[in-house]
């Protein structure tokens, strides 16, 4: 946001903030140790709102739960904005000093009345009003979200709608106030930091910028294309158009993790050449022409990860990898050497030091300092810099050192997969506490709290279907069909069911999901599938 792809705050800030909004996040299960920090905030007296279709383990800690209908987030956010403006609670000093486009924004959100938002989202107008007033009047506030915001076809618009709220109230760029996306994967932040994005070089430097690109070209002795590349969903579309015929997959399992897995597998099978580098022979690896056995990144390799609070921390090798497995860096080096380049022997610190010479936000992070300081939060531009607890303090500087932060106009649109008579029930997906993603890593231990490959619904929903707990039901979407036993939960309601994503071998949820994806971020709409459920 505002040119830097990272959460603005540190975890410690949520411990003393006045208001916590958890929007589309079940951090209690998906990010348990972040939730420890959040609970300290609650115990220190912070008021908490949860916005989530499910009354999750996280939402149970909130003072108020807004049980939003799946995919209506923008309508709700725009109504919160309108209410803040019309109640005279907007931070006009901040808006004038630090933002642009407010007048257009105020006019744009005017049709999003509380009543209209209630109609779209199912959340009572009084609760939306209360959230708006509390957010606007809190001295400090943390607005946190995760995949409930981003796994939609309009993911970027969802995020922008939340950023608008922070600009309206000045809840960004100050200690205690911030925008906090909690990252789902251990190093997805680090991947972005390192330029594993189609349009960025390491340190979020634009590939289209001739000067920045020139710096890397000089250091690498290579020409770098100035055109942005593709993100993974665009790659699969390119396969469909036969424009992409070979793929090198490192540490991903797209055959099971991508939406609409039937189509994904067909496209992977159609490739001329598929290379997979992984610690397991995953379903994707089993389809590969060549498999490079890899060492685990977190226990058998040296390097760094970057966490959700932009903290770069050292990863260390505790174990020797089995058999002929090598760490990712060593494989890439040998691959390059085999291709006729002279990269020599892989050394994680050498690569890191090269990165520090090219990415100003990492320049001050030597291995020695990372070790001594227990990690450093970027940006850290020089060797004497302590790192940065929160971003965008410049918004409060006078005069402003940069262009003001713009309001964005984003319209609510319903989920791509509509509910109708044939598919009347909304299926949403997510994680459970004891498991992780496609289960490749988390299925190795025997969890006493394993829920099984089940479909969660309320007893009322099951009664409507004529099913009892444990009965196997057939779940059918416009793309596919699976069977699963019913499990009762009371965090749901009629018309809303939930399945976890962790056991694709037993229950492949992604045969049901659709691959409608957000053109700006490339994330697919895992959260909103229309299904019908029948007893078997």
């Amino acid at each position: 946001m505002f040119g830097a792809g990272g959460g603005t705050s540190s975890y410690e800030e949520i411990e003393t903030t006045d208001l916590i909004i958890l929007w589309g996040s079940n951090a209690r299960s998906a990010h348990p140790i972040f939730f420890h920090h959040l609970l300290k905030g609650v115990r220190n007296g912070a008021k908490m709102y949860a916005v989530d279709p499910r009354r999750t383990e996280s939402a149970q800690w909130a003072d108020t739960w807004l049980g939003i209908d799946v995919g209506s987030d923008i309508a709700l956010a725009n109504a919160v904005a309108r209410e803040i403006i019309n109640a005279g609670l907007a931070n006009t000093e901040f808006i004038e000093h630090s933002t642009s486009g407010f007048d257009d924004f105020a006019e744009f959100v005017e049709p999003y009345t509380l009543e209209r938002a209630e109609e779209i989202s199912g959340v009572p107008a009084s609760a939306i009003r209360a959230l708006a007033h509390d957010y606007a009047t809190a001295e400090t506030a943390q607005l946190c979200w995760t995949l409930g915001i981003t796994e939609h076809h309009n993911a970027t618009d969802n995020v922008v709608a939340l950023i608008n709220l922070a600009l309206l109230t000045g809840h960004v760029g100050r200690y205690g106030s911030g925008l906090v996306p909690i990252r789902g994967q251990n190093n997805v932040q680090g991947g972005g930091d390192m330029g594993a994005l189609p349009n960025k070089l390491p340190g979020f430097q634009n590939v289209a910028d001739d000067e920045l690109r020139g710096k890397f070209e000089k250091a690498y002795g290579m020409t770098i294309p100035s055109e942005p590349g593709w993100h993974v969903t665009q790659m699969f579309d390119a396969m469909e158009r036969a424009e992409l015929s070979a793929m090198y997959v490192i540490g991903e399992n797209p055959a099971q993790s991508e939406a609409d897995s039937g189509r994904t597998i067909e496209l992977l099978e159609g490739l001329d050449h598929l290379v997979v580098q992984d610690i397991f022979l995953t379903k994707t690896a089993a389809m590969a022409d060549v498999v490079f056995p890899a060492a685990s990144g977190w226990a058998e390799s040296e390097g760094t990860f970057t966490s959700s609070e932009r903290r770069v921390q050292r990863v260390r090798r505790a174990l020797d990898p089995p058999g002929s497995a090598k760490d990712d860096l060593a494989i890439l080096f040998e691959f390059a050497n085999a291709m006729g380049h002279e990269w020599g022997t892989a050394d994680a610190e050498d690569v890191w030091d090269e990165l520090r010479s090219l990415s100003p936000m990492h320049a001050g992070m030597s291995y020695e300092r990372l070790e001594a300081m227990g990690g450093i939060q970027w940006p850290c531009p020089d060797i004497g810099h302590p790192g940065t607890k929160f971003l965008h303090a410049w918004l409060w500087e006078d005069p402003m050192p940069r262009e003001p932060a713009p309001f964005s106009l984003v319209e609510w649109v319903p989920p791509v997969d509509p509910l109708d008579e044939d598919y009347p029930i909304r299926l949403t997906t997510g994680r459970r506490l004891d498991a992780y993603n496609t289960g490749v890593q988390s299925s190795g231990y025997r969890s006493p709290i394993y829920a099984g490959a089940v479909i969660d619904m309320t007893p009322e929903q099951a009664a409507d279907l004529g099913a009892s707990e444990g009965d196997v039901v057939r779940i059918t979407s416009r793309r596919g069909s699976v069977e699963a036993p019913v499990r009762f939960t009371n965090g749901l309601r009629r018309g809303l069911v939930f399945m976890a994503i962790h056991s694709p071998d037993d229950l492949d949820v992604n045969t049901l999901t659709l691959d409608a994806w957000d053109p700006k971020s490339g994330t697919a709409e895992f959260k909103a599938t229309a299904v019908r459920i029948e007893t078997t």
Partner: protein
Amino acid sequence: MIEQRIADPVATVTVTIDGAPVTMPETATLLEASRAAGADVPTLCYLETLTPFNSCRLCVVEVAGSRTLVPSCSRMVEEGMEVQTDSDRVQHTRRMVYELLDSTVDLSLVDDETTRQMERYGVRTNRFGDGYRRTEAVKIEDDLYVRDYEKCIMCYRCVAACGPDAQNTFAIDVAGRGLTSTIATEYDITLPDSACVYCGNCVGVCPTGALMFTSEYRMRESGDWDEDRQTVTTTICTFCGVGCNLELHVQDNRIVKVTSPMDHEVTSGHLCIKGRFGYAHIQSESP
């Protein structure tokens, strides 16, 4: 125009520890003041990351004007306090506490620091004979934890870590009264049937080995547990993007235990079920 929340300045107070003046922030405890003054004060139930519970009474010190000894871990410093950290009365009390524990509870797995303090105070083993000794079968109810309450000193650390100080799950608490009181789930149901979410934070804070990971328990049973052959490497958890520090205890190229550093601000030593047990995937026997 920058708005920053600046912490209020903390006042300082001066206390006398074993005759020497020490100046501390007014938020400090007598334990912190004593240690700042170089005094060797034992603790057992106290842990930096948890709220003091004052159950063991080993950290007691003598404060001039106070009728009873005071637990230094929870008593705040006050201007002009005169403190004796190792007077005859303090030594006598500490020895007695150790001897009572030693006569009722199996202390065979306490840490080296406690062993050193017991030697320092000349603790007489099993001084009170077999008047009362905790006897209870080891509870093994799942593949992750073992509970051996013959080793439990009722320090309350596990209850605090499961409850308001960290995990906020409240699966366990003190049940019963007096000598026969114990740590239990609700109605003493099995752990898998309880509210437990298997974060392992109770095990992580247990000072006596009453709570133990099954991996360690089995290796101890078979005589294979050997800390001299173990290395401890700090790395970052692979599950989710919070960035928890993991200490991987490795013996013979296998992870045998996972802990987290108490002094790291991300975790304060606490983890979740995935960080604690999710390592199995990298040492599965099948390819």
